[in-house]
């Protein structure tokens, strides 16, 4: 007959009370693990999404517009250029995983819309640009054949607006150069949807320049983006646009929400533990005469302390394991639910739970539970057998 069995059987006396306390702990564990899993999953998913932007940094001449909207507002004017010779020095930087040169151009198309409009063109390299944006998928066709081909890949909205399909020929306004549509991208939800991509050399030829407007930079995974940014800012007449800043801003918002949610989870955990303390204390007070009889049998104060603590341990460990099991089982459902209620959720798994996280949570629950079991255990240890026998009589 082990003490574990005695403690376990004691918990079975008031089944409903034990079950309710057990459920409270299980729910707390579920909420806690799910929140931790969400925190990790969301951060990882957001990282993946930002990584999928391809390049984390853009370098361009100061004053050069870099967003499609700005290009449209400026009517395709105001571009400033940098030399391609920069590319070699950037490629040699140990923090940089890859670079891609881009030439941005905008031309007025009198046939676009009712009153005409600005059409944005990106001259890109088929060798380096797709690798920077691995998330790009083709609705039709594919990338250009060679760097100087008179071909174009259209963003989804650009193609939809002009009702284009692969094989169609489009005219670059103002320059009267014909290009063959070789690919139409799937919708990405980014500004790429409205862009027409042209081989870099071809667009340089069309624009009559041998320069570029922008360099997209992908930083190595273990690279120090902030340090690289500082270095790039030292270069004369250059502006740096960093997507990591965007990510950091989002993560700051997420962190704020996370602190609030973790605070709620902590309160839920503390309430559950107050339930544990209450359950075990009630159980001890109801059994005072019996605990006294155990002392007449030879149980020392330490034995009774350990026995009551064992009950707390069983309750907390059992409830914790059940809750963690629940969080594993419901991870997908939780992720789907969170995705429905969040205004923005990155792609991929939003709740990532692993055994390390589960173990840490269980340790916290058992640790806090054992602390909450101190008072009942102490009370049991201090029972005087004579008092209990008097209460019997």
């Amino acid at each position, binding site marked *: 007959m082990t*003490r574990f069995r005695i403690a376990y059987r004691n918990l079975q006396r008031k089944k409903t009370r034990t079950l309710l306390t057990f459920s409270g702990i299980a729910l707390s564990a579920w909420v806690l693990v799910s929140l931790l899993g969400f925190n990790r999953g969301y951060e990882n998913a957001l990282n993946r999404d930002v990584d999928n932007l391809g390049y984390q940094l853009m370098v361009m001449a100061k004053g050069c517009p870099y967003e499609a909207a700005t290009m449209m507002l400026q009517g395709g004017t105001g571009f400033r250029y940098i030399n391609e010779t920069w590319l070699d020095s950037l490629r040699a930087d140990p923090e940089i995983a890859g670079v891609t040169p881009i030439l941005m151009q905008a031309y007025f198309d009198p046939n676009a819309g009712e009153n005409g409009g600005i059409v944005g063109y990106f001259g890109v390299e088929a060798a380096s640009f797709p690798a920077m944006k691995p998330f790009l998928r083709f609705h039709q066709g594919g990338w250009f054949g060679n760097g100087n081909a008179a071909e174009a890949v259209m963003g989804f909205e650009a193609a939809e607006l002009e009702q284009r399909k692969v094989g169609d020929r489009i005219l670059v306004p103002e320059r009267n150069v014909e290009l063959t549509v070789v690919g139409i991208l799937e919708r990405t939800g980014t500004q790429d949807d409205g862009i027409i991509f042209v081989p870099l050399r071809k667009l340089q030829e069309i624009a009559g320049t041998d320069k570029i407007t922008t360099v997209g930079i992908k930083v190595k995974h273990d690279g120090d983006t902030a340090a690289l940014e500082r270095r790039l800012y030292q270069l004369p007449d250059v502006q740096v646009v960093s997507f990591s800043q965007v990510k950091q801003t989002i993560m700051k918002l997420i962190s704020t929400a996370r602190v609030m949610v973790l605070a709620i989870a902590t309160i839920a955990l503390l309430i559950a533990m107050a339930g544990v303390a209450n359950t075990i204390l009630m159980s001890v007070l109801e059994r005072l005469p019996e605990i006294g009889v155990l002392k007449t049998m030879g149980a020392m104060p330490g034995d009774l302390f350990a026995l009551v603590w064992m009950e707390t341990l069983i309750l907390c460990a059992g409830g914790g394991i059940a809750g963690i099991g629940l969080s594993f089982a419901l991870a997908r459902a939780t992720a789907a639910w969170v995705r429905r209620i969040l205004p923005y959720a990155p792609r991929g798994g939003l709740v990532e739970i692993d055994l390390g996280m589960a173990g840490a949570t269980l340790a916290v629950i058992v640790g806090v539970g054992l602390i909450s079991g101190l008072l009942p255990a102490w009370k049991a240890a201090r029972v005087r057998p004579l008092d209990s026998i008097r209460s019997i009589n």
Partner: protein
Amino acid sequence: MEGRPSATIGLNSEHQLTTEAEIVLEARDLTRTYRRGNEEVHAVNGVSLTVRRGEFISCTGPSGSGKTTLLNLLGCLDNPNAGELTLAGRGIFGQGNNLSERRLTRIRRELFGYVFQNFHLIPTLTVRENVLLPLAFYRKPGLDGEADKLLTQLGLGHRLHHLPGQISGGEMQRVAIARALVNRPQILLADEPTGNLDSKRTDEIGEVLRELNRNAGLTLIMVTHNPRIAGLAGRIVEMRDGRIYEG
């Protein structure tokens, strides 16, 4: 069908009545007083008692006469205000020294088994597990199989895996007796062991206690109101107003 205690209940040689009848318990001028408001109550007032190994003593007397208080002092459940107590040759109380609860527990588990009026079995443990319970906290060597042997001797061999709620009051008290004996105590203290039983079960438990004393040589001190059960003992003492009277 309910089991009956076996005709002969034997423990081990430790409990056999010795011809020399050594003294196992000696109380001298034990006194226990309580304060009730401004009044001082002498629950036990200068009681002296000598108990020899293998004796069966009944302690009778009216309610409030100090029987249970005396049993608590003899069983080291309470410290006296004055007097001396010697157990198996060891001085326990004397010269006004009070022992800590921890020391008293050590003495209790070495020497005593206790049986109470209200059985106090754990309802979620089986009969067998209830008897094994004391061994979870303290176990003298060489006690393998002791619980099953005792339960069989007490006629409960067919009830081993029953819960207390599934057996009669008499059987519950027999389980409590087995629990008290499982660590082979030198002295069994019983406080109103038949107080919650009908007359048939009372006789049954009385018979069990007499068997334990006669055949196993167990030293037994029993507090009871029941004159028929008290009559089973070889020696009867009476408590009145905190004092003991014999003969």
